[in-house]
């Protein structure tokens, strides 16, 4: 046979063909940055102090008798830099020459490094919030708990319920939190437990938005489609996990911390933060090792500033059946 055949001309065929496109990653939303009050007046030094002055009190005046004067209580929030981190990658000069993908990989370095730092920042914000409260304690303020195990049950373990949203509102009101911009950051498992609650799925004529839950689900992207008890609700995979606590005789094992607070901009926010060095890309060619080194580095601090404006509800990720 005179024709070219695959069977007899395999050296003329590329056995492996590679796409010039590098597959993108599936990345979740990062939310924490917007809830941190970033301080701009801390360009140098170790400790930053934010004074707080308390309230005046009332005394009885007796006619003709001298007044007694009083001071006011004061507080001080001390803040410092907590994290100095970088993300670095390198590539040898030989690989750079040899690989047709090397320009695209190098182009990805700053993007991926910045994302890594922002995911770290996100995780740290939530971790600082969780650490700001006392573990295994109700963290009571003015008689209202600010940390508890979720009151619902799903799959036999503690799961977020609507009662928890109402209880958060009670706690924040008792702490004089303005409650004009309520936000909840919850684990994705919570949407499952709320969507599958009997009173949502069984009611034939539930009102308004709830009617659409069985049709469209509760979430879109990483956000609930509508407010629940006044809360804008964001889902996050970066919340502190693996928490085993017993609060007020209620235990949760391998739990996740769901956070609730008022996000009114200004000094109401639960967190303060500051950048000493914003994420900065630096690179060099190392002649000795013949490598191209790229790093993105930053230094920042985070502090848990306003514990009154913060509630944690611990739920179990096992609330969603395997």
């Amino acid at each position: 046979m005179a024709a070219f055949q695959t069977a007899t001309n395999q050296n003329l065929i590329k056995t492996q063909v590679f796409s010039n496109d590098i597959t993108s990653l599936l990345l979740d939303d990062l939310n924490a940055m917007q809830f941190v009050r970033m301080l701009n007046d801390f360009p140098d030094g170790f400790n930053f102090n934010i004074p707080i002055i308390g309230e005046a009190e009332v005394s009885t005046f007796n006619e003709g008798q001298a007044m007694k004067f009083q001071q006011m209580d004061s507080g001080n929030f001390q803040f410092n830099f907590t994290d100095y981190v970088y993300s670095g990658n390198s590539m040898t000069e030989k690989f750079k020459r040899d690989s047709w993908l090397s320009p695209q990989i190098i182009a990805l370095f700053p993007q991926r490094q910045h994302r890594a730092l922002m995911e770290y920042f996100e995780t740290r914000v939530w971790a600082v919030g969780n650490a700001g409260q006392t573990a295994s304690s109700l963290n009571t303020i003015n008689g209202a708990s600010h940390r508890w195990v979720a009151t619902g049950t799903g799959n036999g373990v503690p799961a977020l319920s609507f009662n928890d949203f109402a209880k958060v509102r009670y706690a924040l009101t008792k702490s004089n939190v303005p409650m004009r911009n309520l936000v909840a950051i919850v684990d994705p498992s919570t949407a499952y437990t709320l969507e599958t609650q009997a009173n949502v799925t069984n009611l034939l004529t539930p009102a308004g938005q709830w009617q659409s839950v069985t049709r469209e689900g509760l979430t879109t992207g990483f956000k609930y489609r509508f407010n629940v008890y006044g809360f804008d609700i964001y889902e996050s995979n970066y919340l502190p996990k693996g928490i085993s606590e017993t609060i007020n005789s209620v235990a949760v094992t391998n739990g996740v911390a769901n956070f609730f607070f008022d996000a009114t901009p200004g000094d109401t926010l639960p967190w303060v933060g500051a950048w000493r060095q914003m994420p900065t890309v630096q690179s060099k060619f190392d002649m000795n090792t013949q490598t191209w080194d790229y790093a993105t580095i930053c230094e920042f601090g985070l502090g848990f500033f306003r514990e009154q404006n913060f509630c944690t509800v611990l739920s179990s990720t096992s609330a969603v059946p395997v």
Partner: protein
Amino acid sequence: MAIISTPNSYFTNSHLFLKFGTQKAVISPWGDYCMYGPNRVVEGTVDFSTVTAGNTLIVSDVTFFPALASGQLFIEQVEAVAETGLVGGTSISLGLVDSDRSTVPTNYGTAFINAGLTATLATAGNKVTYNAGSTGAGNLLGSGAAIQTPITPDLVNSYYITATAAGTFSAGKIRFRIFYHALDAAITQ
């Protein structure tokens, strides 16, 4: 000895003492007189029927006793006047607690009055003047409250005034006056 907690209150991580609701409207009986003359005077009353046995009450959340550098402040004397006689208990003390509302430096819990006997203030109108060396005189009479390293995160250095009850009192409202003045020394700050 434990500090008696205030209802509807919260001490923040920033060491700010917050009160909520009606607790904000409770009359504050303590303060510093605007005094011309040899001494400054802090005055206030304590109802010892509200001070549980063996425990300590912070008498005011807005009246502080100053801490100055050594040799700058002198506590001259303390007066206790029974407006309602003490009933029950064995003795009373008047002292100081640090700004964290829990740390009591050695002997500061009895800074002004150290176990003043109930019998001396058992009848309305009884008055006891405590000077250094007299019975029941506090440990800081004749000296001053020391500057301590502020309890983190506090930056200010001053003390709350406390009252401690030994035994259970069913009645007894005592007016205290603390007389103190600055010494003739160069200021250090």
